[in-house]
């Protein structure tokens, strides 16, 4: 089997108008890239939301793969936004191929 290396996978759920701020933080942490996934509805302590695209208040999921060091930089950069802007961040180890890219 092809050799794999361990990297961090970080996923951040964020209001769509704020996606740009999150991806700017990823770029600033010098991570090579990111990918945005759509999200259709949700529920949290602030109640439910659904079909808010017309209002521009929907959410998106930003996904990025990085080395442990850069992941730490990213999390520290995002720290002040996490609570104030209600981001939901999860992070775990994944195996990747061509690990030198990340």
């Amino acid at each position, binding site marked *: 089997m092809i050799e794999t290396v361990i990297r961090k996978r970080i996923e951040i759920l964020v209001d769509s108008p704020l996606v740009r701020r999150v991806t700017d933080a990823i770029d600033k942490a010098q991570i090579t890239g990111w990918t945005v996934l759509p999200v259709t509805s949700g529920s949290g302590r602030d*109640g439910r939301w659904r079909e808010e695209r*017309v209002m521009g208040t929907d959410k998106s999921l930003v996904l990025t793969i990085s080395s442990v060091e850069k992941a730490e930089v990213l999390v520290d950069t995002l720290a002040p936004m996490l609570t104030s802007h209600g981001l939901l961040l999860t992070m775990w180890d994944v195996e990747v191929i061509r690990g030198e890219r990340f």
Partner: protein
Amino acid sequence: MEVSAFAPFASPVILFFLLGLLASALRSDLAIPEAIAKGMSLYLMAAIGLKGGVAVAKSGVNAEVAAALLAGLVLSFTIPFLAYALLRSFARLDQVNAGAVAAHYGSVSVVTFVTANELLGASGLVVAGFMVAVLAVMETPAILSGLMLARRGGGSDGQSKSELLREVFLNASVVLLLGSFAIGVIAGPKGYAEVQPLFDSGFKGVLCLFLLDMGLIAARRLIDARALNMRLVFLAIAFPLFNGTLGVLVGNLIGLDVATAAGLGVLCASASYIAVPAAMRLALPQADPGIYLTMSLSITFPFNILVGISLFGELSRWLSAS
């Protein structure tokens, strides 16, 4: 002509909105895909912008237009201060949420304006085309005053200020409204004729389907609402009544015709639920959409569609007659 002349409840536009409210209240799974709804809202803005621009290309610009634009600017900027005071004292909201809600009521709702155009038009009150430009200029000043109120004392983070100003002045609806208004002015009646089948003939039908969706969303949001209390509900009806009356009065004072003064009333009475919520997510993420969006979308918007528009039409008629 008496009130019944409006007969708004026999208009398909209103009936589809009621169907949406009802379907959500019964918890039906009826839903319009978000991409379609978003597409319809862009279509409505482009169409209303074009139409207004063509009207101005025909009528030209004069002192009346300048007066209306100025009045719109001033009203949009000042209404939030008034609203803020009541939100703080009467409804006891904190500073951030009061500022956010105030911004919504100073700004305007494109769809309320469009619906008013149709309903007033059907009763013989044709709002002047240049009011589309007034609509566009009224979108942003309230955001600025709302943010000033929300942040009094508290500093905003500098990093995001330029981004915020761009979002506020170049947000999608302002750009599309002003852009298609300008296209209407440049292309004129002759250029417009080519695209009229899509933007004019189809307009009312699309408005029906869009209001169906807004009815669905407004009612569902109200059902799921947790953060609302009776004082906020009261204000969500008092605001449009007061602001609408103010708008009609000002319109009358600056010499707008009956229909156009009613249109200014509707603009003041309406609360934004498209441009402003997105801006608040960016600028005041701590504010609770369960308050501002539910007030503007689920209470003020239906109130204006079902009651307010007719009311301001009558008020304007009565004022100009007396």
